[in-house]
């Protein structure tokens, strides 16, 4: 290495007096088939990065980022869940030995020991051995930690129906939808549907919102007569003409959106 040794400078500056186009590479530390980082190896890294980026972009296009409906602090039925990489902590705090009177154990002691151990690993495992099987205590503690985290995450995630959760919390931009209460369909809606689905189709405790649905007029008619899911049959009270108007009205509200 030439750095700093025998360098001459212009005056008292740090400008080098010697013109040096190349600093010769020094590969003495590693025997074997070494490769220059610049530009040979960097090019390969670049290729790996490009392939990775393509895969990553495919993921983002195939699965758009989820967005639930706007935060509603009064929604008492909502099941709070952290992002997946915090599920193991969330699950730990559900157990009796780590909650209630023992919450300090769940919040401080157990995570503190695990993450403190990780942080201080070089000082806990000071021996010269590097191979995993030559330091069995360190290796088994880490494996135990990994298995616990995976298992806790699995336990937390298995209890959640993510699809139903997303379905019940679809994002709806409520203000944009204007309800034409003069529409003949709205009269039919008032008679048969308003009680559960609300005055502006916003839904309620017993029934979902009718805004943002993707049913056709015929499907809506069928649901109004036969029911769907927890909605009982024969909710619609009126003539066939009114049923047509109702279905058209609900479809028109969803088209406006």
């Amino acid at each position, binding site marked *: 290495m030439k*750095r700093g040794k025998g360098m001459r400078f212009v005056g008292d500056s740090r*400008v080098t007096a010697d013109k*040096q186009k190349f*600093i010769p*590479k020094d590969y003495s*530390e590693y025997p*074997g*088939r*070494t*490769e*220059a*980082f*610049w530009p040979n*190896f960097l090019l390969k890294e670049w290729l*790996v*990065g490009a392939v*990775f980026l393509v895969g*990553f*972009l495919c993921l*983002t*296009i195939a*699965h*758009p*980022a*989820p*967005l*639930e409906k*706007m*935060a*509603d*602090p009064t929604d008492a039925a*909502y*099941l*709070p*869940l*952290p*992002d*997946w*990489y915090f599920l193991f*902590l969330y699950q730990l*705090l559900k157990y009796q030995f780590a909650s209630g009177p023992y919450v*300090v154990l769940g*919040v*401080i002691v157990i995570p503190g020991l695990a*993450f403190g151990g*990780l*942080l201080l690993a*070089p000082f806990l*495992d*000071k021996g*010269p051995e*590097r*191979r*995993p099987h030559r*330091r069995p205590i360190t290796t088994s503690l*880490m494996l135990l930690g*990994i298995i616990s985290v995976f298992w806790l995450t699995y336990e937390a995630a298995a209890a959640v129906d993510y699809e139903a959760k997303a379905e019940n*919390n679809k*994002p709806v*931009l409520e203000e944009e939808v204007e309800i034409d209460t003069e529409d003949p369909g709205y009269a039919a809606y008032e008679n048969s549907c308003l009680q559960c689905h609300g005055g502006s189709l916003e839904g309620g405790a017993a029934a979902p919102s009718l805004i943002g649905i993707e049913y056709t007029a015929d499907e809506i008619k069928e649901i109004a007569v036969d029911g769907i899911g927890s909605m009982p049959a024969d909710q619609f009270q009126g003539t066939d003409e009114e049923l047509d108007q109702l279905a058209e009205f609900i479809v028109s509200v969803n088209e406006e959106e």
Partner: protein
Amino acid sequence: MLQKVYDWIDDRVDITPLWRDIADHEVPEHVNPAHHFSAFVYCFGGLTFFVTVIQILSGMFLTMYYVPDIENAWRSVYYLQTEVAHGQIVRGMHHWGASVVIVMLFLHTLRVFFQGAYKKPRELNWMVGVMIFFIMLALGLTGYLLPWDNKAYFATQVTLEIAEGVPFIGEATKSLLGGDPEIVGAQTLTRFFAIHVFFLPAALFLLMGIHFIMIRKQGISGPL
């Protein structure tokens, strides 16, 4: 022309050693997947950095539309998602990148751990790395609130309750993070925004700089 501009600057501030110091190093055989395919495990650290760069760039573009305010936060995200050209992809990159970076960081940590690469003389770099891991988790936690949808709101409420459970400093921590001892609301959102966009990235850049300088100083650990 470019060469002349470069020479002119180099003559005055001697920039060649700066980048030559980064460019001129050997890549040993045992970390090169071209020689030993199993050396792909050495890619995880670089990929973590790559995803971090994606996070920084996509995050910069997201702040062009995002409004950290309880009335408009959700609406701005909804607008970005539905109206803005490629907004869905940029938000998708930031959303999925947050998960991928945790996965990559986890794999990188396991590689270093099971190879015993944290042993002398690399103890400090291991600790800096674990701190980067903590910062990343904190970035995920604070970023989760920002869209201000139901899952964001309730997850944050639970998080702050957990923080409150810490003895002695719990309530102070909750007030500091949430902006109020009780309410999860406007103050919480602006605090989390500031933490997510300014405080934590500043700490992250500092730690990453130290991490990389130490790698160059110490070199990569030898083969097992």
